[in-house]
């Protein structure tokens, strides 16, 4: 159990600290306290570990004393056999002590003339840290592995490293077992030659750091520097630095073979930094409760096939698929591309065949990542210009995945697939129409590539919630029929759930403050019946994004006590808006244009503005460039509406909100709409008609003026009188 681990950790730490004390004492006697130590040509952070954790700038032997003394002070006795006292905190302190003692020891070793043997990296400079670190913290490099000791065989060593390389994970090698090292195994296995330069090794993502367990400190005091350089934390801000490495550096340790006290002590240092340790030894006790590290602290995996996947799962390393391996170009630029009939090799859906796509959650044990299966005939079996049925089923698994996120992922399929050159994708769910161009077919595009794209993009964009993605594609009519039935069932359940969702049925809304980068006081409040004004985020998206990034721009807002149900004013929302608008906005009414309306950033799809003479409101969409009846263009309106100010009478909204039963319902709702551009009206006609029917004004849609009937407020009024628009019968809007 953990007690054994921490007993060994603390025992190991005592050994390291004792060594450091003895070595320091000897060096002091030999060279005196003024002797310079460290790697000052390679780093501006003195001894980086004591610099970060203790705020020390150790440059001389004399100054090193404080570091070693502090390491001693951190040491506690090993846990007793019976009636032991809590040891986790003591063990983590021992980890800190070990890192400080080890750092002192490598510095002292250098003073004593030790030179890192050829082929090993030794101290890692700030330059390397800057070059690679940025990739590590911004996620381009998914993480790094620190391998302690040689693997039980060269084959296992090579396989492990290859698996890591495949995922762009940087691997460091250190320590030895009876003289044998993982570096030798790399050479034997042909990963690199014995005389390979260090540059070559860095390029290969496999870096031998040093042949002793002591050398592990080079990796740790390298990665802690990222908190200073990239995290902007100051020396001595230990907590912030350690939280940074825990959060941002996706590192883990792999310990081959039975773990000795000294390795355990170093491992505790890694754990303190948030890096878990994966062991292949059955004698290692696992520590599964989370909290110190993001997931488990120590995990045992004796199946070497599963070793790297276990590491990735334990550290929550997010696999990044850099290049989408398909034979055609892939870019956002291809999204709007049409494949005309004469250019088409094969098509799916519309009136030509059954086609369906859907995403659903599966248990982690059922999903093998990147498992792409195709059944039925591929493109090459159909006659040019023919059609095939198609089902695309995406299975996702993840510790944070929830069923509510399925639709969100599914809505992205259109974007993801249509970015492939020569693949046209329209519609969604079982209303698909896809075409493959002759050119794409000739270039080698086949069904499985759709899976390749989806796997890569889901990992790319939804790494926070998805750990594994598998795709099943079929063109077999029976299978497609069965899958379509299964999918329709899922869609119905999903729709029922969302359709049933009203602002009243939830007690939490979500904020969106993404745009505070340029509209610092703006807070978007997203409710089930009012999506974000940019049209990109609905309530479920807000919720999903909160799950993905709990400290991100989408935060839950507890509605709290209702102040006014009609205006949509709640105590909790007011409090939230006040707090997040930098105390600028004190009130917020979700359903009103005239009273404490929502602020607008600038991303709105449409602007709603009051037309006082017409006793109603006009709506203008971004695409409409002409002057509107209020005398302003969309651009003019945007400048008075945007920027995060609360401007009664003007508000930016998302298109979908226009047809929500909650659309400005405090001011009279859809009945107030007196003008909108024709293009917009046509786009939203069906949904607007539904709302018009709901409020008992079935002719409303046609009564709303467009630029064809009116271009001034007076003309609007004349039109309203002519058609008998219901806005005229409403109370005054002011």
């Amino acid at each position, binding site marked *: 159990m953990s007690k054994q681990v921490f007993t060994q950790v603390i025992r190991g730490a005592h050994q390291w600290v004792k060594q450091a004390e003895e070595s320091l004492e000897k060096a002091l006697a030999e060279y005196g306290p003024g002797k310079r130590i460290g790697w000052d040509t390679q780093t501006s952070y003195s001894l980086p570990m004591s610099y970060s954790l203790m705020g020390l700038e150790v440059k001389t032997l004399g100054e090193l004393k404080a570091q070693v003394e502090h390491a001693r002070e951190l040491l506690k006795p090993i846990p007793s056999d019976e009636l032991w006292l809590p040891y986790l905190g003591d063990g983590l302190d021992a*980890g800190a002590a070990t890192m400080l003692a080890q750092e002192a020891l490598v510095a002292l070793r250098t003073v004593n003339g030790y030179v890192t043997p050829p082929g090993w990296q030794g101290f890692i400079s700030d330059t390397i840290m800057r070059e690679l670190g940025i990739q590590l913290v911004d996620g381009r490099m998914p993480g790094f592995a620190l391998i302690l000791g040689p693997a039980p065989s060269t084959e296992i060593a090579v396989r492990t490293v290859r698996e890591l390389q495949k995922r762009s994970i940087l691997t460091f090698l250190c320590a030895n077992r009876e003289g044998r090292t993982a570096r030798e195994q790399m050479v034997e296995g042909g990963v690199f030659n014995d005389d390979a330069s260090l540059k070559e090794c860095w390029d290969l993502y496999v870096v031998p750091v040093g042949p002793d367990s002591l050398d592990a400190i080079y990796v740790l005091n390298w990665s802690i520097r990222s908190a200073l350089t990239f995290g902007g934390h100051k020396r001595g801000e230990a907590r912030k630095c350690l939280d940074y490495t825990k959060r941002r550096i996706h590192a883990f340790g792999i310990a081959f073979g039975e773990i000795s006290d000294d390795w355990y002590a170093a491992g505790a240092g890694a754990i*303190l930094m948030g890096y878990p340790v994966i062991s292949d030894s059955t004698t290692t006790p696992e520590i599964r*409760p989370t*909290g110190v590290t993001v997931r488990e602290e120590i995990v045992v995996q004796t199946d070497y096939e599963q070793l790297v996947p276990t590491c990735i799962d334990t550290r929550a390393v997010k696999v990044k698929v850099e290049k989408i391996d398909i034979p055609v170009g892939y870019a956002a630029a291809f999204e709007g591309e049409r494949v005309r009939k004469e250019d088409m090799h094969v098509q799916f859906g519309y009136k030509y065949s059954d086609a369906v796509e859907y995403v659903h959650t599966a248990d982690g044990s059922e999903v093998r990542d990147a498992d792409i299966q195709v059944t039925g005939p591929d493109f090459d079996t159909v006659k040019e210009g023919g059609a095939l049925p198609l089902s695309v089923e995406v299975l996702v698994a993840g510790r944070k995945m929830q069923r509510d996120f399925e639709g969100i992922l599914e809505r992205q399929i259109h974007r993801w697939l249509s970015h492939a050159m020569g693949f046209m994708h329209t519609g969604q769910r079982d209303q698909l129409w896809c075409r493959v161009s002759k050119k794409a077919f000739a270039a080698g595009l086949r069904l499985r590539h759709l899976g390749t794209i989806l796997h890569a993009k889901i990992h790319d964009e939804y790494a926070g919630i998805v750990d594994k993605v598998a795709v099943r594609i079929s063109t077999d009519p029976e299978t497609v029929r069965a899958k379509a039935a299964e999918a329709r069932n899922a869609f119905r359940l999903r729709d029922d759930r969302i359709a049933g969702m009203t602002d009243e049925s939830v007690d939490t809304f979500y904020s969106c403050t993404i745009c505070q980068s340029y509209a610092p006081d703006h807070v978007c409040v997203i409710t089930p019946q009012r999506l974000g004004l940019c049209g990109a985020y609905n309530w479920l998206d807000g919720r999903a994004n909160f799950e993905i990034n709990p400290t991100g721009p989408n935060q839950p807002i507890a509605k709290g006590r209702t102040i006014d149900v009609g205006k949509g004013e709640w105590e909790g929302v007011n409090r939230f808006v006040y707090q997040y608008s930098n105390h600028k906005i004190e009130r917020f009414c979700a359903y009103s244009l005239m009273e404490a309306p929502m602020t607008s950033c600038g991303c709105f799809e449409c602007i709603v503005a009051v037309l006082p003479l017409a006793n109603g409101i006009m709506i203008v969409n971004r695409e409409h460039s002409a002057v509107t009846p209020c005398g302003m263009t969309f651009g003019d309106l945007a400048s008075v509406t945007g920027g995060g100010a609360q401007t009664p009478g003007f508000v930016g909204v998302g298109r979908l909100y226009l047809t929500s039963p909650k659309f400005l319902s405090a001011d009279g709702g859809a009945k107030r709409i007196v003008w909108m551009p024709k293009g917009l009206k046509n786009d939203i006609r069906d949904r607007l008609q539904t709302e018009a029917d709901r409020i008992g004004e079935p002719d409303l849609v046609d009564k709303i003026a467009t630029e064809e009937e009116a271009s001034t407020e007076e003309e609007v009024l004349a039109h309203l009188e002519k058609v008998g628009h219901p806005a005229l019968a409403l109370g005054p809007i002011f």
Partner: protein
Amino acid sequence: MAERKQRSVDPASLEMLDLAAAAEIQTAWDRLDAQKTQCRFGREGLCCRHCFMGPCRVTEDGRGAQQGVCGATADTIVARNLLRHIAAGTAAHSDHGREIVRALLVAAEGKSPVYQIRGRAKLHALADEFGISREGRSDNEIAKELGKLLLDEFGKQDGELVNTRRAPEAQQKNWARSGGVPRGIDREVVTGLHTTTMGVDSDPEHLLLAAARTALTDGWGGSMIGTDVSDVLFGQPHPLRARVNLGVLKKDEVNILVHGHEPTLSDVMVAATRDPALLAEARAKGAKGINLAGICCTANEILMRHGVPIAGNFLQQELALMTGAVDVMLVDVQCVFPALTEFQRCFHTKVISTSPKADFRETLHLPFHEETAWETAKQIVREAIDAFTRREQGKVHIPDIQQGLVAGFTKEVVSEILGGRYRPSYRPLNDAIQAGRIRGVAGVVGCNNPKFPQDECHLAMVKELIRNEVLVVQTGCSAIACGKGGLLTPEAAERYAGKGLQEVCRAVGIPPVLHLGSCVDNSRILTACAEMVAEGGIGDSFDKLPVAGAAPEWMSEKAITIGMYFVASGISVVIGQSLPVEGSQFVVNFLTRTLEKHFGATWAFEPDPVAAARRMIDHIDRKRADLSLPPPMYEVPYAPQHLEAAATA
């Protein structure tokens, strides 16, 4: 006479009870028997003695008078009585807190050689919290300003208690809305007593909300100040080992027992009993040493900070004296039986009372003052050495029963043991709750009561909770009960805890049941909950946390107050015997239902400890469901109700 097994489940207690029976010495259990059937009107809160047109007793059931002479109904009388109990409980803890602050001032002014600032880190943390400048000032100067500021909290006439700022916003809002945020401590007690006098407040709802407000001045006022300042003055506790039960008394040493509540004297006694000169004096009289041990909460105070052994809990105060091995029993305030003095007739034991507030007939009264604490402590040790020479060895009978325990957990310690010095954090605890390894946290606290077999309810309830993955935190006599029962050991996790809780205990090296100190230290539970809220992920206010409280063997008015401040803070509480409110259906309903509306928590009464534990678990499961937390990670003996319902549907 009640059967032997009806009296206690503690073998040491039973051994001593047999001895008492043989010697025909009366104990609390015998005196309870002598009471025969206790008064129903008193038990149900229906007896009013607030004016002397009465005493009146009323009923709701129409079988007697339905109103007192003044016209007060059962609802009014019951609510008024409850407020009085709560004012008394608040007064007890708060007066205790006040004495500690006064001792802090004595220390800060350098007026005592024994009181010093031993909890520097806590002093600094409090100074920062209360906006006291530390720049260029000595600890004593800081302590002086802090002490004065805290002392003002007692007599404050306007404004709100400063510590209430520690509560989540939702709780502060609840208080502001329902009867007001607590103001000065003494003021709430005085107002509470005033409004319950003849012809003042008669609206039961108004009275009960005032009771909640008064109780809050205990939890967030007197008790919390008592805990904080004790940590500053006597040092912050850290996990340590100790032993518990009557077997800690030593045959060949001078035995001094402290009993009561305030650590001001007991802490000095620790130093005095270790004083080399006094030890030499003891040896000269034939003793091998001086053994200090304790009963009740003053024992918990010095256990938490010095590892001083505990001889027993509330119902063992007489049994300890039955051993004939106690040379001096030193008492201060609260929970001290007047009956103790009787034992001086049968044994050589000297009972010494020390509080200027509490004298006992026929005892040596050595009133204790902060400035002369050291002299008093030495005098007490000398009295004990003297008594030792008169100990009648023939009468000595010490049960050979004791148990090891780990104590010393606090709000601060929890984050240290979970993250070490560099990353102290509640994250692992919150993570464990979120993941379902730990289902929730329960505070099991309170007294012994001879109406229940001693310790039985504490042990049964806590065992049921931990086997169902609920981490238990404890204080007071309940903690001592579980200490004796072996639950405060890390090994108990292996033996009694569910698999998830076991994993957490193993990872951290903690017992499944954590001892947080004395009964004023229930305030530590409040501040620990605030830390859990602040860490995030398991609810942003107390009433959303998957936590519950209980006092299965309660007997004191202080317990009522504690229960009420927990409920008013949003933490639901289950107690063993009902509050004295059953005479009014309105009041019962208000406490067990309506309070939910005001504070998000309620009272529940359930004498069966296992059934009570399950009610707590149901409550925790409901809170988990509200937070969309998953069901327990591993199979549990008592499964969540909604899961069972789903399975049968």
